[in-house]
């Protein structure tokens, strides 16, 4: 072990020593040039304090010899040969060695990595330079292979006897002397000429046949129509001559008629219904998002994100799949429909918010079932899925709304009412003319609608809109917008003091058409209704203690039909709610019509918020005030109540037992104009107030502080003497009290701020400080600085390149001059030699001359 280490160490030392030696060897002190420094700075490292000019020059020259010189040598030469034969340059190889090496190289090449596992075809077999695969394709149909086999005479090959003669000498018998002896060379020539001739002939034949077939084909094509025609001509002529048939005429006409473009097929009723449904669902979704307003944007909890989330919004289904499992008792964890229904009933019993009627038509429908189930779930696990609950509630309240509507109006009533209405409408339809012009001015509209019953109004408007539908003419849209404004004015001008019932009926008949008109020109509708609200509010401001006329109520009702009242903020609905709020807080309540008016407003608030379940203090305050009014008060005792109610007022209190049992407990439109407060009215107001309170209670059941909201109402409710009222009312009051108490008794969860997500530490830019280098740098913008830097670099590079070029030139100059000198030298030597030879010749000549002379 130690030995090995030692060995290694030695090796390393040896190498380093060698390197050192090399270095020291090259470091000739005479070659070192030292740049003198004016000022010495301690610790400063200088790049250029010493240099080796000789060495570096030699290096540069060597480099040029490798590159520039080579190029120079090859200058003006278009190509060159490179001998890449293996072993050619190696003089140590013998001829055999070279052949061996070459063969080995070929074999190695064949066994390259790609073909190492290819066992089947090491070499590709070829025939006539073509691979066998290619030949087997039989591409050419005019291949002459079969011709070859059929008749040899036609092939380009030599005849057998000729071959026999030529190759085998033919024998003695055939060799007649008449032809004389031909030299072998002649024979061969003849043979070649013969075979060439035959080949040419064969080629010629082949081309000729091809040409002929083609020609034949073409001629045949020309003939075809003639052949067909010739059969039918006679009949055709007869038909043409015999006069043109009606049928044909029609047929031809039909043929040249513009054909209908292919379109999508007509949709079946199911599909239309489905589309309609989808559209409505989309609208509903939008409405819900608007209802939530800005609220949920900030509250929205960030869904769980795994560490591997790629920000591509891909997520597994958030709902965990529940695997079916059984507990000890043998019940499955997936609740079957039956057990669900049981749950629903439990929940309903527990809540007991709904009216008695609710119980009668227990939730049979599947959707209801699901919802209640979810409701149950949400109450059990509370915080788990907030967003989910909200959505579910949205759906739930629709259902609820529908249900209650159905409950409230008994179905039979509706039916008979509708039937009657239909009859009247039918009658109106028959009596009225079918077309109506759009009114040019408001007085025109009044003229048309004057002295007509509400049903007639409806029909007239329907026809008016139909005849002037915006799709019929461009200008109709604006005109219908005007009609909309006129209708608003018409509602405003309804004479409520005469017959308020018919006014309301007229309004009800107009309402669907107003809705249609609003849909046709939405911007106009919104603008004009907003103007109306503004105007009414302006009128109201003059006397804030008095309710404005009943027409305002109609407008509010219209708004609730035309606009989505559940929106968080709506340009028309929100101002009208502010208006209602003002009236409920400010207006005095002295007479029957005031009370009825206020009650209508509260009812409107209930309607506006029935989907969004929002809270308005003034509405609850008003209801509490109504209850307060129903408490009989003696002079000593004072029960506090909030303005605008007076603590002494007891105008709704019953002092004797209510006698008559009324059929309808609903409020009447006439209550809005009469002033005297009757016992009947007292009971009806109270009854409806109780109903509305219970509905509000249902709406607010999720609120944390609904106990405080309803505290006053509960207090007053307990003070109302129950025995003055009939059984129905007593029942109602008891129910309400118990349900109020039930909803207010619930757990309150302390407010908690949302847990803040830990914030990632901020990543700072590395703090790089510049070293002061005695140079003044201009303060430039980033781009300019970059540019300046680049320019500087270019300049330096340019200088460097110029220097290199200069050195190249000098190098080349040196090479040229060397060559020149060398060639001069050679020439001189040649001249010298020639002179020397000439001298020798001369001397020889001279010597001969002298010899001759001597002779």
């Amino acid at each position, binding site marked *: 072990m130690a030995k090995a280490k030692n060995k290694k160490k030695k090796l390393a030392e040896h190498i380093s020593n060698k390197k050192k030696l090399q270095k020291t060897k090259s470091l000739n002190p005479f070659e070192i040039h030292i740049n003198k420094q004016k000022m010495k700075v301690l610790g400063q490292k200088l790049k250029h304090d010493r240099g080796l000019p000789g060495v570096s020059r030699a290096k540069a020259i060597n480099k040029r010899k490798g590159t520039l010189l080579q190029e120079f040598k090859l200058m003006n030469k278009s190509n060159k040969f490179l001998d890449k034969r293996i072993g050619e340059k190696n003089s140590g190889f013998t001829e055999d060695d070279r052949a061996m090496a070459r063969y080995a190289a070929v074999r190695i090449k064949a066994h390259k990595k790609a073909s190492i596992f290819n066992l089947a075809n090491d070499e590709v077999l070829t025939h006539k330079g073509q691979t066998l695969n290619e030949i087997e394709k039989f591409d050419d149909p005019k291949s002459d292979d079969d011709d070859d086999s059929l008749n040899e005479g036609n092939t380009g090959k030599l005849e057998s006897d000729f071959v026999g003669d030529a190759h085998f000498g033919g024998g003695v018998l055939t060799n007649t002397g008449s032809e004389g002896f031909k030299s072998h060379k002649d024979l061969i020539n003849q043979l070649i000429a013969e075979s060439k001739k035959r080949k040419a002939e064969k080629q010629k034949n082949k081309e000729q046949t091809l040409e002929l077939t083609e020609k034949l084909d073409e001629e045949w094509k020309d003939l075809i129509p003639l052949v067909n025609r010739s059969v039918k001509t006679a009949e055709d002529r007869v038909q043409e001559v015999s006069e043109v048939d009606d049928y044909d005429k029609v047929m031809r006409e039909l043929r040249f008629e513009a054909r209908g473009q292919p379109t999508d097929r007509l949709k079946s009723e199911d599909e239309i219904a489905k589309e309609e449904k989808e559209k409505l669902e989309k609208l509903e979704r939008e409405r819900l998002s608007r209802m939530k307003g*800005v*609220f949920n944007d900030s509250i929205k909890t960030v869904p769980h994100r795994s560490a591997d989330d790629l920000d591509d919004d891909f997520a597994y289904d958030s709902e965990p799949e529940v695997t079916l499992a059984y507990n000890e008792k043998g019940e499955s964890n997936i609740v079957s429909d039956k057990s669900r229904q049981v749950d629903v009933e439990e929940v309903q019993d527990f809540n007991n918010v709904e009216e008695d009627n609710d119980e009668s038509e227990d939730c049979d429908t599947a959707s209801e079932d699901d919802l209640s189930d979810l409701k149950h779930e949400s109450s059990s696990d509370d915080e788990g899925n907030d967003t989910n609950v909200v959505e579910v509630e949205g759906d739930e*309240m*629709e259902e609820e*709304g*529908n249900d*209650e509507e159905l409950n*409230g*109006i008994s179905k039979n009533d509706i039916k008979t009412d509708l039937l009657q209405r239909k009859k009247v409408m039918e009658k109106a339809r028959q009596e009225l003319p079918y077309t109506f012009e759009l009114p040019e001015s408001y007085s025109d509209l009044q003229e048309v609608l004057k002295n007509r019953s509400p049903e007639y109004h409806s029909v007239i408007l329907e026809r008016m809109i139909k005849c002037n539908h915006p799709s019929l003419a461009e200008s109709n849209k604006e005109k219908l917008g005007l009609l909309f404004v006129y209708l608003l004015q018409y509602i405003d001008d309804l004479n409520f003091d005469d017959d308020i019932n018919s006014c309301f009926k007229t*309004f*009800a*008949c107009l*309402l*669907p058409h107003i*809705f249609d008109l*609003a849909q046709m020109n*939405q911007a106009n509708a*919104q603008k004009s209704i*907003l103007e109306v609200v503004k105007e009414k*509010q302006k009128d109201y401001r003059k006397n804030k203690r008095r309710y404005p006329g009943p027409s305002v109520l109609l407008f509010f*009702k219209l708004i*609730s*039909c035309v*606009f989505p009242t559940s*929106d968080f*903020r709506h*340009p028309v609905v*929100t*101002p009208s709610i*502010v208006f209602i*709020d*003002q009236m409920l807080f400010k207006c005095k309540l002295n007479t029957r019509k005031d009370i009825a008016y206020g009650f209508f407003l509260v*009812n409107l608030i209930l*309607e506006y*918020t*029935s989907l*969004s379940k*929002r*809270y*308005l*203090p003034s509405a609850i*305050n008003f209801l509490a005030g109504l209850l307060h009014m129903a408490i009989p008060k003696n002079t000593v005792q004072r029960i506090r109540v*909030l*303005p*605008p109610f007076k603590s002494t007022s007891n105008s709704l209190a019953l002092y004797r037992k209510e006698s008559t049992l009324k059929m*309808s407990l*609903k*409020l009447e*439109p006439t209550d809005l104009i009469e002033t005297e407060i009757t016992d009947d009215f007292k009971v009806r107001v109270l009854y409806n107030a109780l109903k509305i309170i219970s509905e509000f209670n249902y709406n607010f059941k999720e*609120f*944390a*502080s609904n106990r*405080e*909201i309803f505290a006053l109402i509960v207090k007053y409710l307990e003070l109302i003497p129950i025995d003055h009222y009939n059984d129905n009312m007593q029942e109602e009051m008891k129910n309400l009290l118990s349900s109020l108490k039930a909803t207010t008794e619930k757990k*309150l969860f*302390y*407010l*908690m*701020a*949302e847990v803040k997500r830990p914030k990632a530490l901020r990543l700072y830019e590395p703090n790089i400080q510049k070293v002061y280098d005695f140079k003044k740098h201009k303060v430039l913008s980033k781009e300019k600085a970059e540019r300046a830097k680049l320019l500087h670099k270019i300049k330096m590079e340019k200088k460097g390149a110029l220097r290199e070029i200069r050195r190249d030139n000098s190098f080349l100059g040196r090479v040229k001059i060397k060559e020149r000198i060398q060639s001069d030298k050679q020439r001189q030597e040649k001249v010298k030699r020639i002179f020397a030879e000439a001298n020798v010749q001369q001397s020889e000549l001279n010597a001969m001359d002298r010899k001759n002379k001597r002779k």
Partner: protein
Amino acid sequence: MSNSEKPTKISKILRTKAQEFLSSHKYADNLVDIIKHFESGADLSACLLSLELIFTNLLKERHMFIQIIPLKPMEATPELQYKEWLRNIYTECFNKILNCCESAPAKIQVQAISTAMNLISFEAKYPLENKLNFKGYLPLGKLKAALMKILSIKHNTSHLTQKYEEYFVYDDVIFFTWKILPLLTAKSNPTELYIINYLQLMEKLPVKKNTQSKIVCCVDEESTKTNFHFDQIKVKRYLNKVWNCMMLWQHTPVTHKQLLIVLLEQVLPHLDKPLLMTDFLMDSLDVGGPISLLALQGMFTMIQVHNLEYPKIFAKLYSMFEPEIFHTKFKARLFYLSDLFLSSTHLPGSLVAAFAKRLARLALIAPSEDIIIICMFIGNLILRHSGLKCLLNHPTGASASADPYIMDESDPLKSNAINSSLWEIQTLQNHVLPSVATAARFINSPLPSVEWDFTKILDNTSDDIFDKEIKKNSKLIVLAFDRPNGLALNRGEKISLHWNI
């Protein structure tokens, strides 16, 4: 036509008559005619104007001036007699003019008082007699008579006070009014109307002299300084005298309130012994409503300026937050004051929590504009007192069966509010109005570092909210998509459930 022209004609006639009278002694009868016309009660304003014209000119020309030289008996010259006659008529007329202030229509009353004041000012400038010792002289008797009309026992004289207020630009008018006031102050219980009139005057009457000293009784500018000296100490003495009398009167709620306003705005800084007011203020605190609110403000200045110690002040303030305050005119003042009171950061957390909680409760029944203020107020309280954060963020997050806060407890320290949570604000996030709902959302996010400034919106009304919502004219046009069937909506229909329509 005759009706419309008649008064102008008569006024023209009266005017020419007056001018004729002034032109020469010959037309002395004209004066008698005018006075007779005046007494008849017709065309009062024209008569008043012409009388004013006559007498101001007479005073200017010194026609009624009688030189009194001491120790020299008067000589009964016809001129002197004429002067005497004029003076008699003048005093008579003055009284008659003032009598107009009682019965005539309001417009005439105002004119009468202005005529009277004009005459007084002219008399001050051109006195009827030469008084040697006192040059800056205002006819005190006449001024007193005028003031008596203003402090009427039978009528509400707010319009007269208003007219009279115009003369308070003159220092001497102020000074002499103060001088006369103690004489006119009733010692025993006066009528309510008198008190109201008195307080109205007191409310307007400045205690200090104006910055530009202008006086009525100067003919030229130079004499201003020499003639008259506004004695602040004397005025203070008069004021104290008057105030002591006023405190003895029996006050109805209306006058009580007015008295407090006058006390706070005018009198309190000038009283000799303001601490004597403490009892009065404390009694007022117990009355309730706006009176106690005003008393509270008084108490605040007493505590702040005069070092009064009154430990139960917060309990009083606390008891003032009743549901009824939203229907008073003073709610803005109450919010402002309570913000002042609770601005100290050294108050115990439980006390401030009680306030916050009570405000939150009130917000449940308050009008929309007030809910916004309350939300900001509560936010500010929590900002000032970090201990209150537990109202928004419970340390452990438990649940309670009912709100531990006791609303009926009168002592804020015992109300147990600090153990509660602001559920009311959470509920109010579901308010119908978007502006309110957003205001209540402050509890969802971390509180800002700077307090909300709600002084600007203290006087907002629901009309302002209405206008704001109208102006917020969003471009988005959204209509409902369910076609109503007759009057009934397809869903959420509530009206026809309760109305037989």
